[in-house]
């Protein structure tokens, strides 16, 4: 799996030798996160977001478990128990704010992580399975966050649960039965709240399991990199430790600083005031919105307002199908994009289309947070149409007609060229082992 020049783990001392021959966990860590894992040397800060997502998951699990010690999953007292956490439990307000804004931060990190993968073509061979596992994590996260939000049993919790579980009733014939089965009743009630708590507790650990598979799949080919070209020799890589442990640690400090700013100074910035009103099954808030991280998909759901063709398929079913396919499409991306060049740095046309797509998703996000009125409806219809066109028409077409820029011969050549151009002191570095293999570069590698 790893590159042939990876350093080998040497247990130091009798005790480590004893451990290594019985349960070689230190070896596993050394080979996957330590000096024994060679990583492309040109990773930029966008490559910090994988580690950050892992940290965000751990933060959610730790704060969630302690919240679970004070929370009561019963419709008569759930809302009060959350207020009890906020007012009476020692430091409870902080734990809840960490958990609530932690979910938002988790999604920010994961969205950046996904768009990073889109830009650098990380979903392409040999990393398709890695990409698919990432999408599974994304789906599980959405389910987890949705159910967590219901636990508060405020107005938005209740009506969000009503709207989202009703999506399943759009399925022809069996939809109503599935809907009732999911809720354990005809409307969200105690049975619903209880099962959501049970699953909200379980799913993060399933996510953790899939994350392990995700990282395993990553370590087979190793990380992609901003050039998108394969690692060819030792000159292209540096050991994970200390190079990327240091870089990830720096990124983590920045992340935790921003996180603290929001937790301590703006904890309700991303929340909805209506969720501080206890759930009332007889009155819908004037404007129901899910949490911001669902907005792009919510906009696609609402974009369908007429039955077509000829009134045959109800608008509701179209909306639901479109919303789920918007996510499922991502699973097919490795086969829709047939260009052999991974990184958009060398795809002049696709690079611009990538940014248009980013803007399109942002527009969808804005529309999803607005009331279902014009101009937002029309705008979300156009943006939804573009979303699907991007994956189904534009991406396959561009892969065929685009003429990519010339690729560098190796990662290290690309790095050195950049640094020579900008006058960075690349030439001052001592010659390294990989040099002999790169006569073309004419520059000493590090």
């Amino acid at each position, binding site marked *: 799996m790893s590159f042939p020049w990876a350093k080998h783990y040497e247990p130091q001392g009798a005790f480590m030798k004893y451990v290594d021959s019985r349960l070689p966990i230190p070896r596993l860590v050394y080979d996957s996160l330590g000096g024994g894992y060679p990583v492309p040397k040109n990773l930029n800060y966008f490559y910090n977001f994988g580690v950050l997502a892992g940290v965000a998951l751990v933060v959610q699990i730790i704060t969630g478990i302690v919240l679970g010690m004070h929370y009561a999953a019963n419709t008569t007292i759930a809302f009060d128990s959350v207020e009890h956490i906020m007012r009476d439990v020692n430091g409870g307000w902080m734990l809840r704010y960490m958990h609530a804004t932690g979910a938002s931060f988790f999604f920010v990190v994961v969205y950046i992580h996904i768009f990073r993968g889109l830009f650098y073509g990380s979903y392409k061979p040999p990393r398709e399975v890695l990409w698919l596992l990432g999408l599974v994590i994304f789906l599980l996260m959405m389910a987890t966050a949705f159910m967590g939000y219901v636990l508060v049993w405020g107005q938005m919790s209740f009506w969000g649960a009503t709207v989202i579980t009703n999506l399943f009733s759009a399925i022809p014939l069996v939809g109503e039965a599935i809907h009732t089965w999911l809720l354990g009743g005809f409307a969200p009630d105690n049975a619903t709240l209880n099962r959501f708590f049970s699953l909200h507790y379980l799913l993060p650990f399933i996510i953790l399991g899939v994350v392990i598979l995700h990282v395993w799949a990553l370590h087979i080919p190793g990380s992609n990199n901003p050039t998108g070209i394969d690692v060819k020799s030792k000159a292209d890589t540096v050991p994970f430790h200390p190079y990327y442990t240091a870089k990830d640690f720096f990124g983590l400090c920045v992340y935790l600083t921003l996180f603290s700013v929001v937790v301590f100074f703006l904890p309700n910035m991303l929340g909805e005031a209506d969720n501080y009103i206890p759930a009332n099954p007889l009155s819908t808030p004037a404007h129901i919105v899910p949490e911001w991280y669902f907005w792009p998909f919510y906009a696609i759901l609402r974009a369908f307002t007429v039955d077509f063709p000829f*009134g045959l398929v109800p*608008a509701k079913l179209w909306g639901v199908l479109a919303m789920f396919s918007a996510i499922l499409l991502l699973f097919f991306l490795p086969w829709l994009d047939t260009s052999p060049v991974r990184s958009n740095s060398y795809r002049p046309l696709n690079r611009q289309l990538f940014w248009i797509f980013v803007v399109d998703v942002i527009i969808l996000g804005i529309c999803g947070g607005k009331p279902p009125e014009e101009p937002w409806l029309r705008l979300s219809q156009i943006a939804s149409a573009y979303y699907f066109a991007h994956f189904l028409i534009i991406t396959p077409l561009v892969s065929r007609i685009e003429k990519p820029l010339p690729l560098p011969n190796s990662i290290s050549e690309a790095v050195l060229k950049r640094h020579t151009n900008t006058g960075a002191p690349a030439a001052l570095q001592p010659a390294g082992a990989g040099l002999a293999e790169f006569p073309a570069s004419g520059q000493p590698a590090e």
Partner: protein
Amino acid sequence: MATNDNLVTDDLTPTGERRRDFIFVATGAFAAAGAATVVWPLINQMSPSADVLALAQIDLDLSAIQPGQAVKVSWRGKPVFARNLTPAETAAAKAVPVASLRDPQTLEQRTKPGKENWLITLGVCTHLGCVPLGAGEGENKGAFGGYFCPCHGSQYDTAARIRQGPAPKNLEVPDYTFKSPTQVTIG
């Protein structure tokens, strides 16, 4: 094992099947049936429990509801709207060509004979289940004078029929009977 001839040759039936295959298939089928019997209760426990299913009926007194007014009551955890239509509202509902509707139904089909002014429906939007506005005093009744769902903008007319927006069906009419001119039992 299938390739181990010594073991299996004397085990063949005249048509060339191995006797042992029968045991394999039978064992597999038994295990699958056993697993299914265990999985079913695990799935079925999520269906509504007996207390949730216990059908609740409610009685409703209509005498205090003036023409143009409506009340909202809770039935099986869902809101029910009971509305006393004004003559103008019944006329408006009847004036609509039924064929032009998404879910074609006349006002007569949605009310009881001789009680056309009493429009009793679930207050559950058929799109994704929000409670539409329009039953309460001063609430937005939408462009068609009936109900307006704030969630995704479905508009219902004065017979609570879907006229615009994403909802596929008219507001559902529950089972109910008139016990007296001003008393109904829902459920």
